């Protein structure tokens, strides 16, 4: 290699420095092919007839008229499903196509495959459903009442999908001895993911009988098993390929179109079949953040030391588990927030209803409890006449403390530094000044909230990832990443880590995106785990590859391996200055020598705060947590009730930061969704009728609705994470709602109990009218 060539090699991507996303250039040019971007002349379109009613027995499906329509290739019902016809992660309770019962209006009952979308739409109208209405249940209390209509009569708990219970110390009894006790009930709404790319995919049954599905999903390896089991296929004959999804946020954590595509392909072998939900269909059928009702009692001594907490949490999981039990369990674990509370009694319930499907959504049960515990702390601060920041300072968790579920906190904890960063912030120090400057007809308030968020799956389900690196004979390095990058940028972080570890410029590395036939099983893109769990596997693989290359070069140089350096594009014998280009060395290696795989299983907590093995299976407890302190400064228009967030500040401890720009993206995006949850996003379904079917009725923030979001991170190092990292993707969505609620309470003088804080609710609160919207 000439000196000139060496000059042209771009530098190694250093960890800790912002490094431009690998996917950005193609995406910004419209060249990245998403799952929905596939078209072919012979392609067929698949779509489903949805139930349209909340609860009914399926007596029959008349497909005759639809079948007769020219251009219709297949009309399929549950009778065509040869497998279990059941999907799900813990409870396999969701049918691919309804067989016995409809359990919510978005249930798929019949699948139509047609030559174009117009024919598909007409054929779907011609499918006739014979449904016998059943009494439906939409209310949490009614669902749990004796004699309630049962959504899954075979489920031993009736409409109670799962109950979780943890008691520490003397439990709720300790509240009796507290000189100060506050209590409140909170109602949190459904939240819709509203990813820009609705559920999409395409598939083909190949000549050899294998099924290849390309889908927008977070869970390729789990999907493969679910598709195979539900359709009665050999998992080895099912392949899932995942291009970059156009957003997911938890809503693609599990099956959406995959099994339906498989079923369509079995009926139309050899033809590519595509399915792409409309926005309304996505809103109707897709999973939501669980609607929740939470009852809290919190007691302290006169000095503001927390003593006892009682919490009852009700999560409306809708008609299917869909990770609802796991969501509820994470809520249970986080119900006491990041505080030392020696006596707690927490009961939580995931409840089946005929409402929209509750499922995974960034935050995963924690935004609901963070909303409740933080606002309850603010009540307590008011009752004690104490500054809310000071109250938190006195009680926040430090390393080695017992968490509210009674586990020893055994990870890096930078929460105190986060809170002090907030305390030093000009908005906090000068908040009285800032509030006094409120323009006419407005009031201002500044609020804060803290959060913690568990990283990874929990103690039982193995949190495993497998990394694979391949050196091509041409000297390029393929990085096989089986974890989906749905926009967080973890794929870029992987390149950055491997680039540094192999001492090669990032352009020498190529990504292989998740594909069950090429990449190794690496779990879901969820639980703030993508880099935390995949990273160590990748680093180990990169170290092994580097060692192998140096050893091989040392043989060629007839030198000890310690004298050989792996440099960008070449290996050098440092003693003599002799070099060999990486490509030449690569060409000398056997194919087996050019591939390295490494597996990592994330460490878990050996503690068991509950003797219930189901709770451990559902993820209780976590070993590692990330932490944040967030501040909102709001201005409330007293004439219109509109709340404007003027400033928002996040200080977070997410361990070592490998790419500051990517972290800012995660924090800003999560805060934006959190502010939407607090103020605008009001997903409504009324007795089975979807009232918010589009972006005109379900309002997500626009560029005009948000301020610039300020982010700071404290420098912590988590020994269990790759290069000291902890997960960051979910944490910042947990506390924007309570921070805004605290600011609104300060500005308006009432404490809201129902969310989002719509102008109607603000005006009702300002008017002092007694309202169900205000917490008692």
């Amino acid at each position, binding site marked *: 290699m000439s000196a000139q060539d060496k000059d042209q090699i771009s530098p190694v991507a250093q960890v800790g420095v912002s490094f431009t996303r690998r996917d*950005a*250039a193609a995406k910004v*040019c419209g060249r990245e092919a998403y799952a929905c971007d596939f078209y072919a002349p012979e392609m067929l379109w698949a779509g489903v007839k949805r139930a349209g009613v909340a609860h009914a027995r399926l007596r029959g499906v008349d497909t005759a008229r639809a079948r007769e329509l020219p251009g219709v290739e297949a009309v399929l019902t549950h009778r065509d499903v040869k497998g279990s016809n059941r999907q799900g992660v813990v409870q396999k309770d969701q049918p691919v196509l309804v067989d016995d019962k409809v359990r919510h209006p978005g249930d798929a009952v019949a699948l139509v495959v047609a030559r174009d979308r117009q024919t598909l739409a007409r054929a779907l109208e011609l499918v006739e459903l014979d449904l016998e209405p059943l009494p439906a249940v939409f209310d949490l209390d009614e669902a749990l009442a004796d004699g309630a209509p049962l959504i899954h009569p075979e489920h031993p708990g009736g409409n109670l999908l799962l109950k979780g219970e943890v008691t520490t110390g003397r439990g709720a009894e300790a509240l009796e001895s507290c000189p100060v006790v506050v209590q409140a009930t909170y109602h949190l709404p459904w939240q819709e993911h509203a*990813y820009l790319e609705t559920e999409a995919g395409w598939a083909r049954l190949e000549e050899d009988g294998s099924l290849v599905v390309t889908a927008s999903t977070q869970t390729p390896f789990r999907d493969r098993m679910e598709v195979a089991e539900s359709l009665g296929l050999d998992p080895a004959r099912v392949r899932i390929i995942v291009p970059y999804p156009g957003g997911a946020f938890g809503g693609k954590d599990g099956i959406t179109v995959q099994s339906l595509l498989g079923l369509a392909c079995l009926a139309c072998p050899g033809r590519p079949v595509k399915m792409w939900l409309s926005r309304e269909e996505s809103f109707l059928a897709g999973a939501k953040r669980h609607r929740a009702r939470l009852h809290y009692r919190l007691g302290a001594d006169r000095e503001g030391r927390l003593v006892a907490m009682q919490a009852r949490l009700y999560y409306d999981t809708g008609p299917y588990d869909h990770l609802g039990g796991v969501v509820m369990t994470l809520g249970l674990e986080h119900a006491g927030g990041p505080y030392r509370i020696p006596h707690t009694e927490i009961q939580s319930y995931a409840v089946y209803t005929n409402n929209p499907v509750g499922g995974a959504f960034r935050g995963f049960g924690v935004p609901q409890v963070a909303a409740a515990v933080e606002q309850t702390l603010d009540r307590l601060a008011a009752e004690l006449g104490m500054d809310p920041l000071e109250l938190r300072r006195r009680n926040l968790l430090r390393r080695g403390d017992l968490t509210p579920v009674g586990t020893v906190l055994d990870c890096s904890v930078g929460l105190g530094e986060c809170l002090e960063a907030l305390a030093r912030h000009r908005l906090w120090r000068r908040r009285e000044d800032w509030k006094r400057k409120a323009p006419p007809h407005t009031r201002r308030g500044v609020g804060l909230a803290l959060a913690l968020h568990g990283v990874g799956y929990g103690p039982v389900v193995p949190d495993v990832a497998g990394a694979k690196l391949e050196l091509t004979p041409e000297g390029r390095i393929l990085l096989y990443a089986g974890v989906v990058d749905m926009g967080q940028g973890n794929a870029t972080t992987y390149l950055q880590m491997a680039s540094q570890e192999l001492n090669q410029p990032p352009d020498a590395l190529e990504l292989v995106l998740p594909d069950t036939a090429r990449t190794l099983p690496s779990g879901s893109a969820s639980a703030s785990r993508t880099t935390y769990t995949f990273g160590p596997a990748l680093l180990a693989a990169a170290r092994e590859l580097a060692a192998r290359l140096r050893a091989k070069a040392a043989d060629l140089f007839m030198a000890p391996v310690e004298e050989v350096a792996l440099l960008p594009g070449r290996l050098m014998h440092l003693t003599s200055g002799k070099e060999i280009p990486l490509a030449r060395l690569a060409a000398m290696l056997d194919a087996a020598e050019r591939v390295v795989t490494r597996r990592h299983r994330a460490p878990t907590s050996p503690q068991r705060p509950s003797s219930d093995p189901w709770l451990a299976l559902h993820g209780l407890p976590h070993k590692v947590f990330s932490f944040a302190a967030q501040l909102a400064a709001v201005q409330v228009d007293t004439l219109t009730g509109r709340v404007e967030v003027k400033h928002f500040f996040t200080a977070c401890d997410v361990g070592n930061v490998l790419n500051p720009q990517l972290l800012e993206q995660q924090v800003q995006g999560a805060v934006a969704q959190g502010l939407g949850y607090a103020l605008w996003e009001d997903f409504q379904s009324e007795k089975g009728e979807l009232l918010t079917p589009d972006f005109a009725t379900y309002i997500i*923030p626009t560029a005009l609705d948000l301020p610039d979001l300020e982010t700071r991170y404290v420098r912590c190092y988590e020994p269990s994470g790759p290069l000291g990292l902890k997960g960051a993707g979910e944490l910042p969505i947990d506390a924007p709602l309570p921070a805004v609620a605290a600011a609104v309470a300060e500005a308006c003088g009432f404490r809201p109990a129902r969310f989002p804080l719509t102008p109607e609710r603000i005006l009702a609160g300002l008017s002092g009218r007694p309202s169900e919207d205000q917490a008692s």
Partner: protein
Amino acid sequence: MRLRFTLNGQPVEIETPPDRRVVDLLRQDLGLTGTKEACGAGECGACTVLVDGRSRLSCLMLAAQLEGRRLTTIEGLGDPQNLHPVQRAFVEHGAVQCGFCTPGMVLAAVDLLEQNPAPSREEIRRGLSGNLCRCTGYQKIVDAVQAAAGDDPRGEDAP
């Protein structure tokens, strides 16, 4: 109908039903899948294209409306080796996450800068308020547009 228009600088003549949605014409018939569709109702801006230089929603336009027009899609703006300045700014300033809103957002920004070469952050936010993004919180998009306009993104309105 026989439809004639200019697509990304090249004359195009095709046979199409006059009521074919432009987004389908582009994506399915012409293979230009850089134009995205995310709501089909003119509420999100993902399908934004430039018609005679102005941003338009291709999910609300019918093929016949293109007759004689100059249409620019994201594919006509730049390519990874030769990025348009707005595209480069999006890449450098971290304005791209999942990327699904990005083509429409970039084209809306190009139109905005055409109308107002030196917008304030507030004007940028207003100008892009018809384009939804669910990943970024918009801040880095605003940074990128400000940078493309030649301003320091951490200038005047920044906290």
